[in-house]
């Protein structure tokens, strides 16, 4: 393990971490932003209506961004906006107004790949911090040095960098470093893949990626005019689908390296996913920083991450170059083991009655689990369920329906209720 006195100090005979990294979470809409902040994110990255890379996500209007900033500031959390397309000429008109709008909405920074957007932001919205996107595929310290000299506050490294490479970059260049810790990842160097452009005429570097890398292909070899299949009849086809990134075991090493921001991927993911992943990494970071030398990863944290995983996961490049075990063949996703079924709105300690918004079907007799930042996970069998007007229900059938039922232990607004399959 790497140790550094800027990162930890001995206080009252015990080593503690004094440089705690930022936990950075994704949010596809305002509700997810609020959940991410409430569950412990120090910063949240969101997308606007333009210039971001997830044209399929809900994305935020400038008004929603301003509301997100106000909500986050109550928790001391920051908001960054992804503006990381590689622009074409036609994207230039409107850019200045958009960046000024972001500055007026009070967002702290933007995540950018194209020098057009970097320099335009400097000129028209100088209060915005500029972070270099992973779309630039930064893989060495000298390139990082270049961007520092260009005046950037932070760079997001390529997902292809290893722990040792990051250590050397940190040592040689004084700039904030952000790296991914969890979520889906490109199998190509980011920004260097245009499969989607060729296969579906959707521009991958402007948010149109159709994820062609998740499809199956057949591998052949051309010998003269003969096409020789490089697979047997029963083999799974050629695939290049990466397992999702999961660096929970590496968090201690990342903290000791002095990485400034630990980023969770997933602006398209559900609030259940965001809440679960954020709360687990919040616990890991806090526990390690409080007592690094007696820290162990708890099995319950690993189990918790598994409850919202929709693909198998692997540590990928941080821990060495990934091989076939870090890819998926035959199947490209897995069914989640838990459904998110309800969001707590209120709880009456006297009557032990919860008021909850339905998010998926449940009925009396179901065993459910509650989780949230204020509570330890617990399970409960649901007894009778009533609607808002006090009518007893045979099941909670309707999305967003408000229902009440008895929960033995205290729960808090934004706590979530999930159910195993």
């Amino acid at each position, binding site marked *: 393990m790497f140790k550094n006195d800027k990162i930890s100090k001995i206080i009252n005979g015990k080593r503690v971490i004094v440089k705690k990294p930022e936990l950075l979470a994704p949010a596809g809409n305002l509700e997810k932003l609020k959940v991410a902040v409430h569950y412990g994110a120090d910063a949240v990255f969101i997308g606007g209506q333009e210039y971001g890379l997830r044209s399929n996500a809900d994305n935020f209007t400038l008004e929603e961004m301003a509301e997100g900033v106000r909500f986050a500031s109550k928790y001391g959390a920051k908001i960054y906006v992804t503006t990381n397309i590689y622009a074409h000429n036609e994207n230039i008109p409107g850019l200045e107004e958009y960046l000024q709008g972001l500055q007026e909405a009070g967002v702290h920074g933007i995540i950018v790949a194209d020098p057009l957007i970097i320099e335009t932001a400097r000129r028209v919205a100088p209060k915005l911090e500029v972070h270099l996107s992973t779309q630039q595929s930064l893989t060495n310290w000298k390139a990082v040095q*270049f961007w520092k000299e260009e005046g950037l506050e932070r760079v997001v490294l390529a997902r292809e960098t290893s722990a040792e490479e990051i250590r050397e970059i940190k040592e040689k260049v004084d700039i904030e470093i952000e790296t991914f810790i969890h979520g889906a990842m490109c199998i190509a160097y980011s920004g260097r893949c*245009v499969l989607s452009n060729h296969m579906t005429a959707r521009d991958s570097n402007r948010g149109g990626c159709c994820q062609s890398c998740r499809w199956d292909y057949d591998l052949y070899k051309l010998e003269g005019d003969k096409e020789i299949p490089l697979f047997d009849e029963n083999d799974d086809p050629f695939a290049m689908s990466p397992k999702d990134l999961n660096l929970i075991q590496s968090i201690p090493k990342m903290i000791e390296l002095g990485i400034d921001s630990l980023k969770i991927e997933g602006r398209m993911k559900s609030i259940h996913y965001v809440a679960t992943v954020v709360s687990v990494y919040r616990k890991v970071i806090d526990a390690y920083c409080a007592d690094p030398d007696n820290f162990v990863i708890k099995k319950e944290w690993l189990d918790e991450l598994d409850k919202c995983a929709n693909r198998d996961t692997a540590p990928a490049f941080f821990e060495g170059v990934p091989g076939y075990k870090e890819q998926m063949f035959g199947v490209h996703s897995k069914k989640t083991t838990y459904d998110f079924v309800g969001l707590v709105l209120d709880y009456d300690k006297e009557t032990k009655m919860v008021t909850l918004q339905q998010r998926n079907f449940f009925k009396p007799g179901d065993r459910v689990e509650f989780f949230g930042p204020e509570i330890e996970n617990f399970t409960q069998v649901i007894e009778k369920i009533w609607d808002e007007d006090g009518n007893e229900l045979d099941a909670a059938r309707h999305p967003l329906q408000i229902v009440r039922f008895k929960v033995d232990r205290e729960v808090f607004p934004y706590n979530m209720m999930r159910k195993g399959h």
Partner: protein
Amino acid sequence: MKKPELLVTPTSVAHIEELAQAGANAVLIGEQRYGLRLAGEFGREQIVEAMNVARKHGVKVYVAMNALFHNDKVDELSDYVRFLAEQEVDAIVFGDPAVLMTVREVAPHMKLHWNTETTATNWYACNYWGRKGAKRAVLAREINMEEIIEIKRHAEVEIEVQVHGMTCMFQSKRSLIGNYFEYQGKVMEIEKKKYEKGMFLYDKERDNKYPIFEDENGTHIMSPNDICIIDELEEMIDAEIDSFKIDGILHEPSYITEVTKKYRLAIDLCAEDREKYRQVKGDLLAEIEAIQPAHRPLDTGFFFKETVY
């Protein structure tokens, strides 16, 4: 009328001689340790030889250093740049800013061409790299004719456009072919097998064949068709695009030479005798079609295609 440079990728030193006679004005060479997806492998010795041949014919030599570098290669970049400066190559092609920084340090007068393959998509970015020291920008293949012309109109740097050959769609650091063989349990054969040439991925739904290969820079997947716009050069010549590139990667040298001859003729006619160009351009296209390998259909890339997002 100003003629664009005709830039071609040779497969060997001997091939440079042939290409010069076929009408190439410049060649792009290099080795996979520093450059991406080259038609031939040119170590330092071959670069020295290539310079001799090229000088004799008045052909310019550009050397590719456009790989994405990890820390392990950063320290040796300056030695290679110094070597290239001593040989007086005409330009270094880069994508990674680490190369730009190195050139500033050890060979500040060396010309630089900015080429990341996929990210030169607007005129502002081209000029940005120009202000940082690049003399030329190599445009992304995924933009259309209208965008190319508009970039040229605003450009403060030379503009290079690929007019013929296959293009790269994907680069991964991972050993994707090797990983697949290993997954299949064919462990013993992998080391040599994964570097074999001639492999392709078949996409049933689109009935496309994508060439795929591995080298020191990872796994590369290439376009299913070869671009050919020999009959559509007028707009770009009128706009005074500075360089037309024929990329010969994964093609036979004789094919690359033949294609070079035809573009030489097309460019000369288009610039000097527009009527004649219009008369023969269809024939030139047909002549290239006639020598196309069976598995490599021609198309016009993104020149006349709209993409959405």
